[in-house]
């Protein structure tokens, strides 16, 4: 199989729709087939990165717990769009294994990857 690099731009909040969950599923699937995957959390997508999400009472699957596990499944490149994080008051210094990205860095990633998917 040819190797295709995928850039996943995750713009959706964690529980408002199924899109954020779909992005994680696609990332895991692509990585399982040994494709290079980069995931960028931006706009409302950064809301997935807040810690302390208590989803049991709402009977939701906790997405925030799945994100730190992504590198174990070969989804190695995780990034957060810094201006989006600042907009929502998310402290990126506390995020392990997630690289901050500015606007120029985001534009560069969209050019470097073969396929760009928006969630």
């Amino acid at each position: 199989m040819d190797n295709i690099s995928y850039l996943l731009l995750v713009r959706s909040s964690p529980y408002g729709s199924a899109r954020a969950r779909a992005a994680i599923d696609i990332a895991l699937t692509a990585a399982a087939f040994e494709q290079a995957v980069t995931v960028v959390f931006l706009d409302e997508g950064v809301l997935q990165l807040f810690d302390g999400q208590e989803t049991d009472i709402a009977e939701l699957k906790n997405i925030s717990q799945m994100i730190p596990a992504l590198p174990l499944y070969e989804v190695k490149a995780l990034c957060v769009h810094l201006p989006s994080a600042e907009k929502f008051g998310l402290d990126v210094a506390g995020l392990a294994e997630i690289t901050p990205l500015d606007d120029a860095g985001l534009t560069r990633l969209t050019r470097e990857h073969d396929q760009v998917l928006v969630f």
Partner: protein
Amino acid sequence: MILHTVNKTEVLERCLALVSEGDTVLLIEDGVYASLEAPSTASTWASVDPAVSWRVLETDLAARGISDKMRAPFEAVSQAQFIDLTLAHEKVISWG
């Protein structure tokens, strides 16, 4: 060179932050309403990058009764031209 398809007006801002020289922005579905916007907003189209092409899918304009209300710098394209655009660009980013 990237073809950006925008299917609702609210995702346009995110798309515009990423477009650069040689790209084409194509408004489809409810995204076509962005081509109606007043010149003050429209001037932002040209200021993004002069080397970006601005297109609108004519079938979606016609469906909404706004074919004659689209403003420059947008130009209408047919379904067939939409296909040509996808082939002429290295990749397509479908926003929204």
